[in-house]
């Protein structure tokens, strides 16, 4: 057990009779232990002296009248404080509405999309159609907002473009075999046949 712990337990009367005897023997033999004990006794003595400190009687006599005065004063309603509370509640209410507005919105996304497509001019609609890759719902909405003639024109343009692309990739047999030996040509032909191309 540490010295401090032994001293405090000794002062607090928490040592067993054997420990107490042993401590008192050590106390007789050690000046350091006596000095340490005296330091703790000084703390006890100082607090003990201050325990009996008396308050000024005038001050003591003033406590109860002040309390009675407080009891007698009716509770006043502070306008300033109440306005502060009201403002705070209003602020929280407005913030809550703005935050939760999106969660409880009943607006149909399809209606929003329809309004959007109607706001586009013809060129913008065509550009959008080109950008879309099979989004059926959007395509349907867009097509509903474009006249039949415009749609036919659009499809015709698309077919023409596709034909041009196809023609660009139309490579003749002779162009393919340039630079290949007869043996290599036969091998490729056999390979194609084997794959049931």
């Amino acid at each position: 057990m540490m010295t401090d712990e032994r001293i405090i337990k000794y002062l607090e009367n928490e040592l067993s009779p054997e420990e107490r005897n042993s401590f008192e023997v050590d106390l007789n033999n050690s000046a350091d232990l006596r000095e340490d004990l005296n330091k703790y006794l000084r703390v006890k003595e100082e607090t003990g002296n201050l325990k009996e400190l008396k308050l000024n009687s005038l001050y003591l006599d003033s406590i109860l009248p002040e309390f009675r005065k407080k009891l007698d004063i009716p509770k006043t309603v502070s306008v300033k404080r109440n306005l502060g509370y009201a403002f705070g509640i209003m602020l929280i209410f407005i913030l809550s509405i703005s935050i939760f507005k999106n969660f409880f919105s009943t607006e149909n996304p399809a209606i929003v999309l329809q309004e959007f497509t109607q706001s586009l001019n013809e060129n913008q609609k065509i550009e959008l159609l080109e950008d879309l890759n099979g989004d059926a719902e959007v395509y349907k909405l867009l097509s509903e907002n474009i006249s039949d003639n415009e749609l036919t024109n659009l499809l015709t343009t698309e077919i023409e473009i596709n034909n041009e692309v196809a023609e660009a990739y139309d490579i003749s047999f002779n162009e393919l075999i340039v630079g290949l030996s007869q043996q290599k040509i036969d091998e490729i032909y056999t390979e194609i046949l084997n794959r049931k191309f």
Partner: protein
Amino acid sequence: MNVKTDDHLLVRDFLSGNEQSFNILARKYQERIYWHARRMLGDHDDAHDIVQQVLLVMHSKLNTFNFSSALYTWIYKITATRSLNLIKKKKLKKIFTFSPDEAVDSYGYENIIEDIEAKERFLRMEKHLNSLPIKQRQVFVMRNYDDLPYEEISNITGKSIGALKANYFHAIRKMKELMEKK
């Protein structure tokens, strides 16, 4: 008739409408309430506030007092809780207002202690007490100034006796060191 039954009679008398009985109880305990609060808070104005608050609680809540315990334990519990709450409140206020630590010598209203020599010793001791952490300060005050046994401190604070003893050990050791330095 002992103090406990005496107090209980006064409480019953007050509850039946006799305000004079409350005045007797208030005069009897106001000084002890003040000293506990003052030792915990280290400031006269705060201690004075606590006295007023505790009297107010006593006046409005004595009808909830359980007559199985001593009245002073009930009052002491309120005083200890109110003092701790004020310390926490002041700490929070200090954080949010970014105010620096207040000077320790802001005691104010020093005429409340008439004996000059005792006052000096008291202020020196108060300075040491203020440098203890709250839990250690509380158990030190309850043990050394109010002579409460650990069981009663445990009942008031809701802490285990082991934890209280550990806090007291650190508190008294620190007080010894502080008094050595002076």
